[in-house]
């Protein structure tokens, strides 16, 4: 049914989606300090520069901690919600569902702005606490949706079987449900981690003096410098993402959850 010329559309699609990444990759090895294309010469200096720029190193650790912490908390708190939504029918389930999908409908920049104003109102809040709260809130939709999807694929009666064999509800869940949701939890984790690690709009307002996430510090670096250091850092991040996404797709089928 697919004719040969339709494959041209695939070439265009992938050229457009992936071409820019190849350009960054090439630019990060170019010797000239201004961003001319094609790059002249070959150097690894820009990669060295990435690791010598404390602004990047510091914000990398902050982003990493933030992503791990907010992903794990959103999973731990989101999993019971997913379980309640999938296994029970109750009054107000529609409201619960709406509330937990809302953070995806509201523009990230608006969320960051609204949170900043609200936190100011609350008084003196640590910058990291604010970032953690903001990231956890925007990750709930992913956790709840992905885990709900993997719960739906599991026969609800396996829990009853566990209970009939003598387990209590909690043990039944731990021993029978949880092991069968590993792939869903892992997918939600990868998705949540990437979403938090890459987030700019929410972090932009919530970052403070000395506490900045990596993407935000990249953005402010770009305001002052236009050299291949950013290209080198981008290359590193893209490679990291490709490896993570490929592994997750191979093992978990990530793209079905996006």
């Amino acid at each position, binding site marked *: *049914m*697919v004719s040969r010329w*339709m494959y041209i*559309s*695939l070439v*265009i*699609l*992938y050229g*457009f*989606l992936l071409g*820019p*990444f190849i350009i*960054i990759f090439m630019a990060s090895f170019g010797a000239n300090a201004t*961003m*001319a*294309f*094609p790059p002249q010469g070959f150097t690894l200096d820009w990669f060295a520069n990435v690791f010598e720029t404390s602004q990047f190193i510091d914000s990398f650790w902050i982003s990493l901690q933030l992503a791990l912490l907010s992903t794990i908390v959103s999973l731990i*708190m989101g999993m*019971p919600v997913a379980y*309640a939504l999938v*296994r*029970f*029918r*109750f009054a107000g389930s529609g409201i619960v569902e709406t*509330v*937990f999908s*809302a*953070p995806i*409908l509201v*523009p*990230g*920049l*608006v969320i960051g*702005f*609204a*949170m900043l*104003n*609200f936190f100011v109102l609350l008084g003196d809040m640590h910058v990291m606490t604010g970032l953690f709260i*903001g990231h956890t*809130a925007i990750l*709930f939709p992913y956790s709840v949706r992905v885990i709900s999807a993997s719960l739906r694929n599991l026969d609800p009666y396996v829990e*009853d079987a566990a209970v009939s064999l003598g387990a209590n509800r909690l043990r039944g869940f731990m021993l029978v449900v949880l092991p069968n949701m590993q792939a869903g939890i892992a997918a939600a984790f990868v998705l949540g981690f990437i979403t938090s690690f890459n987030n*700019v*709009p929410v972090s*932009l307002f919530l970052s403070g003096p000395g506490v900045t996430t*990596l*993407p935000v510090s990249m*953005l402010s670096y*770009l305001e002052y410098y*236009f050299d291949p250091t950013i*290209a080198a850092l*981008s290359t590193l*991040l*893209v490679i990291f993402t490709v490896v*993570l*996404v*490929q592994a997750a797709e*191979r093992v978990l089928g*990530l793209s079905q959850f*996006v």
Partner: protein
Amino acid sequence: MIRRPNQTRTIILLVAPAFIFVLVFFVLPLVFLLSQSVLPEDGGFTLTGYLDFFQSRVSRIVYLRTLKLGLIVTGICVVLGYPASFVLARMPARRRSFLMSLVILPLMTNAVARTFAWLIILGRRGLINQTLLSLDLVENPVRFIFTETAIVLGLAQLFLPLMVLPLVSAMENIPDDVLEAARSLGANRLTTFLRIVVPLSSDGLVLGATLVFTGSVTAFVTPAILGGSRLLLMSTLLRQKAVILFDQHAAAVVAVVMILTTLAVNLLLRVLRVQQS
């Protein structure tokens, strides 16, 4: 659905922690934002913030530009995404899975990194200008950065995956038999595509278009880097009002207009879906 005794208590225990978290740290800030937009610090309830927004030439231009670019990006994503999604949907599962993981790459990478590539491509001494100059098509470099073209390209690359994913999943559900039935009844490939594939994937198209459009009108990093303060969109306008002009009241108005715009589009989607079924 399983019904058990003490169900209500169980449900409350399961839902309450996260629900309270989202209520306090997400819903409440939005309510406060809404109140900020109608309650300036020095006075009572007023809608002047909104009147000012729509009466100001600058913000009107920014708002209409944002909507216009959103529509153009959506159109480009449909044109680029539709035939390619069909090819992807008809592939053997293994190859499709690999290609789909490449499709989502732009969504999964750092927005600054991804947008930086467009600076290299579109810059004064970038790929396109060097090509144009070496072919003697232009005498001086053309300015692409800080133009609508640049923003549209950056946004289209970012949001194309959000068009392709729902389209592919809609088209996967069309059985081969149905396409072959159309062919055996005399339809050529193009007719089969237009008469069978397009109507049967319209759900995916509507969903994809909504995601691309709402994403485009609210995206921040792409317009911030490729449009800067010279070519503002709603998101960059919001940041300008809040961070540079320190006008929280006006910024709140911009934020609420952005929310209402995305809500309106999502509502439209729902209406379209209801009409279809």
